[in-house]
């Protein structure tokens, strides 16, 4: 649903003020409240459902499979499905591709290693039930919670099986918690001379540019990218504003990680 010209100019002017007046009254470094619900899919190794205050909702499931390490390039595969978008749309494809890349880059393969020969391969399935704004940040929070709540079967056979032609065997019911430190992706919107985190739909509509910033292991890391949030208001942004966005994420991310871990 597109906004009217006057709505857009009202929003744009409000967000250009110093400090920015966001449409829901949030301060620049405040995210929308979210509700998380983990471990509810019995057939999966880990799952999380996340819902934001604007009604956006996202379900993530993690399933594991034992694979031969030599044969697999990537041990994590992400599949994204966004309600209302075609599966082959560039938007969905690029989100899946980006998440696969980031997760494989930031999660060390040794965490998934099972034996000399075998490893777990994780299949992360993302289903965005409804999304009003750019869903990437919400998806990454859900993936984070799901991976943190993932339990994998416990290995009982020897882990040195390079010479033996034997498949790994697992304990009947004991599970081991997956110990990983998944990255978080944040979106910021640059409007005028301001940068705000976690833009809502209306804010995205008038943003000059959106910036995707990754947070992993206590610092801002690549990938950092500009993303187009709308067609009308996109312009070039000042060099310093990119830095401002990065600083904004640096300021916010530790609290978000703490909140997500504190569950």
């Amino acid at each position, binding site marked *: 649903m597109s906004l009217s010209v006057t709505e857009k100019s009202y929003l744009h002017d409000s967000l250009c003020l110093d400090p920015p007046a966001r449409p829901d009254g949030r301060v620049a470094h405040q995210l929308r409240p979210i509700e998380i619900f983990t471990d509810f899919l019995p057939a999966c190794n880990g799952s999380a459902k996340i819902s934001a205050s604007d009604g956006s909702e996202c379900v993530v499931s993690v399933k594991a499979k034992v694979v031969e390490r030599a044969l697999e390039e990537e041990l994590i595969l992400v599949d994204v499905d966004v309600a209302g978008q075609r599966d082959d749309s560039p938007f969905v494809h*690029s989100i899946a591709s980006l998440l696969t890349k980031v997760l494989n880059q930031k999660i060390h393969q040794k965490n998934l290693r099972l034996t000399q020969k075998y490893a777990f391969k994780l299949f992360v399935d993302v289903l965005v039930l409804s999304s009003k704004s750019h869903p990437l940040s919400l998806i990454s929070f859900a993936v984070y919670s799901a991976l943190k709540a993932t339990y994998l079967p416990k290995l009982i056979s020897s882990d040195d099986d390079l010479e033996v032609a034997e498949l790994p065997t697992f304990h009947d019911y004991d599970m081991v918690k997956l110990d990983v430190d998944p990255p978080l992706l944040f979106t910021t919107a640059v409007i005028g001379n301001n940068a705000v985190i976690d833009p809502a739909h209306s804010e995205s509509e008038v943003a000059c540019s959106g910036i995707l910033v990754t947070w992993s292991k206590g610092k801002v890391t*690549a990938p950092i990218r500009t993303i187009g949030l709308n067609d009308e208001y996109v312009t070039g942004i000042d*060099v310093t504003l990119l830095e401002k966005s990065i600083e904004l994420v640096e300021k916010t991310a530790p609290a978000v990680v703490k909140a997500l871990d504190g569950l």
Partner: protein
Amino acid sequence: MNVADRRRILGPLNAKPLQFASADGNLQDAHLQETQSGDETLYIQQGIVTNANGSAYLEIASPTKNDQHILLLASVYGPRPTRGTFSARAALSIQFKENTLEQFTAGEVKELCNFLASVFRAVINLNRYPKSGIDIFLNLIQYVGPSGTSSLEAIIPACINAIMLALIDAGIETLDTVSAGSYKGTVISFIRNGDEIVGFWADNDFDNNGSYAVTVDKCRRHYIQNRNAMLDYIVKTK
């Protein structure tokens, strides 16, 4: 007659073999341009796709970067009328295709197209073209990365430059001559003489000593080189 080889289709009896013109003369016309920009050699030719509204062919060789080699063709179709609902500004679509060797996954290609589209949405004056569409096609003819590797970052500046040249050839209104520079895997696309960023792509971490400011500065330098080479070419050929 019974000696005729029936396994082949020989064509009529009076057929003559194709004869190609000798390639010695007149190939070097005024549209060719080879520019040395920094440690790269740029070869630009506009308007070689005749059925497109604008096109540009770009060849980049960087002997210093382990013989990195890029051959890229960008063609612009439009602005042409779109059907269906009214839209106040032109719809932009960018398609990327590798013609020879497929080195990138489908997902990566989509990411690249999305990124390029977001760059050019900020640059093309889309408000001037209501109810129309602009379609841009990129053909990567050849890409040899440093020591045989392939990375998306390496071709993004070339893509941006090629599209910009093709847009100029098509006479489509843009706000500035956009170009991009890269430094150690970070690509930044600038306008307004390097004051404003329209696209930022970093898939690798910054250097530990070189921080953000250094990266931006290096990219800006590369951008200015690239842009000047493009402007040079345009001024000389027109």
